[in-house]
């Protein structure tokens, strides 16, 4: 097939297959993937972990791991097959044509070289001499909107925040003015507002530089906001492709439909309905040899799907689907059909004893004049069976609050923590066994939270012994009950963490936390290490356990979708100070504190509409030298007068208990235009 166009696509994959050699066997991770990127186009590649999306990027640059190889097809950059390039030509391509930005900017930068040195290197390769290269490096930092480039040049990577590091990496990538920029999960692990900033930056720079972009992400919202076209990758196959808006509005492959249904969208709440999930697990690479790779998990699958590999069907308007039943996607059954859980009535709880009460809690690190106020005078209440969502950027004090609660750090004298009405000692060893049992935690990363050398039986059993005080047959019975509660089966009891998927590991972590029938569980970013479909299942699990056991959650998350879905009340922290607190609906619908409004507007959505986004300018101020007056005034888009800089606003609550710390009167504060609950 010869394509006679005037200028070749910037990137073209023709039936590319990639295999990894594992224990002597060739395991296919990409199967016949074809796509092409025109000049200036932004192409989103979406897929869950293990779908092979990063392998695409590595194959294009010929940096596959040593056991990986391209087993078929061609990858062409500017019309040249990268497989045929000799060493010098390959280096030329990397130096001039293709640039790449990876997920973890902290690791992509050399820890023992200054930023200036690393950035100048790119210009040196292109032929600039020392001083000239440094000047151009500094200019480049300015172009990625780094405010004090000269100072950043002298810094080492670890001295910069994650957002700054990613800007540096982007500067390094764009420095060569590449024709193709590959972004591999560039915002994973960054805060919502930082993520939005980076996405904005990429959007602006793409116009300035005119590079074509291959944007690889599992974040559907980010893809929707940035890309022209999108390809959906599942188990190494491109199952659907098309222009981004129509594709997300009316997907034509059951996997895409499933992914979109998993998202905790605005309007969905735990009390209304469980989130939809995709049943089963992605197949092990190479395990499905006949039929459609998605058939085992597909609600529409029939005999044809299990035997005949679906062809690529052209649907018109540039859309392609690899599904036998692309014309009746609408009839894909919902996976989760259950009666609504009986929603606990907030009113009936409001009168009882709160399970958690914090009064004037502060935490100061260091001594004056270098004291950092990580928490300032925080007072909160959490009722049994309810969820309090804690939101705020990195450095806002969310983790400090959780650590104080768990007894890992001692708050300043003067504040009070109470669990079920009884004072909670600052040190964990002075707490009663009952209190320790009552208060448990689920961490972000189950990989590091679970002992790798223990079996699931031991991991949960130990927690049952320690927290539940059970032994022998009683202990076994409780382990089985917990296992059922987190929807695992006895088959997993003998497994060790590495034999489990990410979602299963997080279920084990949840089971462990519930071993002593806790009344309050701190959930610290419980789903941010998980894929979208797994996230939905864990959120459902947490909601179910809460409804069954009346356990309260303190939910820390930077994903507002997660917070929205699970929370009954929301507290917004900024530089350790509560700026807003109230019932979830009131906080989300407004009137909002200007900071909350900015956070909400920063969250990307699959509809791709981020036009109403409020941009915060400037970095988060240092905790050592906090702004006077209202802490937020240095970045506030609604600042209206000197009062903001001199006087701290009062924290007044309305009748519903919705408190906002702002000088503006409520009627002047922003309201959310978000869709009403459907």
């Amino acid at each position, binding site marked *: 097939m010869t394509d006679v166009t005037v200028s070749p696509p910037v990137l073209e994959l023709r039936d590319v297959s990639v295999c990894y050699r594992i224990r002597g066997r060739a395991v296919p991770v990409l199967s016949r993937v074809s796509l092409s990127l025109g000049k200036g186009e932004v192409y989103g590649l979406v897929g869950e972990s293990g779908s092979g999306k990063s392998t695409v990027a590595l194959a294009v*640059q010929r*940096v596959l791991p040593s056991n990986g190889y391209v087993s078929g097809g061609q990858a062409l950059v500017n019309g040249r097959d990268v497989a045929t390039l000799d060493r010098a030509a390959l*280096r*030329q*391509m*990397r*130096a*001039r044509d*293709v*640039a*790449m930005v*990876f997920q*973890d900017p902290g*690791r*992509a*930068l*050399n*820890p*023992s*070289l200054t930023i200036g040195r690393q950035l100048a*290197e*790119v210009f040196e*390769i292109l032929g600039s001499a020392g001083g000239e290269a440094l000047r151009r490096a500094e200019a480049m930092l300015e172009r990625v909107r780094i405010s004090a480039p000269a100072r950043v040049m002298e810094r*080492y990577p*670890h*001295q*910069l*925040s994650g957002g700054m590091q990613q800007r540096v*990496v982007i500067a*390094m990538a764009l420095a*060569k003015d590449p024709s193709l920029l590959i972004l591999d999960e560039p915002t994973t692990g960054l805060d919502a507002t930082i993520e939005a900033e980076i996405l904005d930056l990429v959007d602006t720079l793409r116009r300035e530089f005119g590079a074509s972009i291959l944007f690889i992400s599992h974040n559907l919202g980010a893809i929707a906001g940035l890309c022209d076209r999108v390809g959906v990758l599942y188990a190494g196959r491109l199952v659907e492709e098309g222009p981004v808006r129509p594709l997300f509005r009316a997907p034509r492959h059951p996997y895409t439909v499933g992914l979109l249904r998993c998202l905790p969208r605005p309007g969905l709440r735990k009390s209304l309905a469980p989130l939809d999930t995709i049943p089963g697990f992605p197949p092990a690479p190479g395990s499905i040899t006949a039929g459609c790779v998605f058939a085992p998990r597909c609600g529409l699958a029939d005999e044809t799907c299990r035997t005949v590999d679906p062809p690529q069907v052209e649907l018109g308007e540039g859309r392609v689907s690899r599904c036998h039943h692309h014309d009746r996607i609408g009839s894909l059954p919902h996976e989760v059909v259950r009666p609504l859980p009986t929603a606990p009535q907030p009113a009936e709880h409001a009168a009882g004893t709160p399970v958690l009460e914090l009064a004037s809690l502060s935490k100061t690190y260091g001594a004056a004049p*270098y004291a950092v106020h990580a928490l300032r005078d925080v007072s909160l209440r959490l009722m049994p069976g309810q969820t309090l969502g804690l939101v705020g950027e990195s450095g806002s004090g969310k983790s400090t609050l959780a650590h104080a609660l768990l007894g890992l750090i001692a708050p300043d004298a003067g504040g009070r923590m109470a669990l079920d009405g009884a004072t909670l000692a600052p040190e964990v060893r002075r707490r009663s066994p009952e209190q320790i049992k009552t208060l448990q935690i689920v961490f972000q990363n189950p990989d590091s939270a679970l002992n790798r050398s223990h079996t699931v039986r031991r991991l949960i059993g130990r927690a049952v012994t320690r927290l539940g005080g059970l032994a022998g047959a009683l202990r076994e019975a409780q382990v089985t009950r917990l296992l059922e509660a987190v929807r695992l089966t006895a088959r997993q009891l003998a497994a060790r963490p590495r034999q489990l998927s990410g979602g299963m590991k997080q279920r084990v972590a949840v089971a462990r936390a519930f071993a002593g029938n806790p009344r309050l569980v701190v959930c610290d970013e419980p789903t941010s290490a998980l894929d979208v479909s797994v996230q939905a299942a864990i959120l459902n699990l947490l909601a179910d356990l809460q409804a069954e056991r009346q356990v309260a959650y303190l939910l820390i998350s930077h994903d507002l979708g997660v917070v929205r879905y699970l929370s009954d009340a929301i507290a917004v922290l900024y530089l350790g100070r509560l700026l807003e607190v109230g019932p979830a609906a009131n906080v989300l619908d407004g009137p909002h504190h200007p900071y909350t409004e900015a956070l909400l507007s920063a969250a990307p959505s699959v509809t791709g509409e981020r036009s109403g986004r409020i941009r915060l300018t400037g970095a988060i101020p240092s905790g050592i030298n906090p702004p006077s007056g209202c802490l937020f005034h240095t970045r506030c888009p609604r600042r209206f007068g000197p009062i903001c800089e001199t006087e701290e606003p009062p924290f007044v609550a309305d009748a519903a208990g919705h408190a906002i710390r702002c000088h503006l009167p409520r009627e002047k504060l922003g309201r959310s235009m978000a869709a009403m609950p459907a």
Partner: protein
Amino acid sequence: MMKGALGRFFLKRLALSLLTLWLLSVVVFFGCQVLPGDPARAILGPLADPRAVAALNQKLGADRPPVEIYLSWVGGLLSGDMGQSYAYRSPVAPFIGSALVNSLKLAAMVFAIVVPIGIGAGVLAALRAGRPLDRVISVAGLSLTVIPEFVSSIALILVFAVILRWLPLSASWPPGSGPLVQIQHLILPALPLVIVLFGYIARMTRAGMVEALAADYTRTAVLKGLPWRTVLSRHVLRNALLPTITVIAAQMGYALGGLVVVESLFRYQGIGSLVLGAARAKDFAMLQAGILTVGAFFIVTTLAADLLTTLLDPRLRTGGRR
């Protein structure tokens, strides 16, 4: 502020080192006290009249309570007096001094040989990870490390000094020899230690290299289009060798104090054989001063290793904070 924090860290480490040194002096001193035999008996011999022994003990001050003897010993050390050797009837300090110089020469020889070949082999093994050359280097390093010094020493003496006669048998050179002759005499005694340390340094280097080669920043450097040599020298080696440098510095102490076997086999007048001789002769002042010197050297090299690591790693140097 960050500089201050770093300074405080080292002051703290220094104070800890002094504490360790003091503890060592206590252990060494009272350890010698519980050894059978007393100074006068050691001087006068087993057949001497008990009354003469008691009189000499009194004259030497050895009949005082142990704490008192300890205090006067430490007091002497602080004012630069290491005491009198009973065996040689003369001050200890000059013996310690010349033995220390000899030991340092031997240690320098060891590191001059082992550092380049250890690092070189480690780098080579990492670049060929999983291939035959890597296997050979790793297995050889591991096998060599477990050969005790006395075994390798004897084998080396047999081969190079007795059979081939390439190198002198004794480590001690004739008085007034020039540096070249000294080096010639030092090669053979250095080799057993080289054999022990080679595997250690090579494996450490290999591990650091493998990690750095797989690191994301190395991939970044490759994708910048840098030539492979530049990637290696500027991005990989710099990070890969950090732990190795620390290990080498920390091994200096071992190379100085752990040479008893080698020094006595090769009849070399280093600190190891000095301490061994003093222990045999119940020459307590010499024994205590020798052990304390080795201990002090150990502490100094450990401290130096920490300092070096901190200075080489910007994450530690700048206090690790944003």
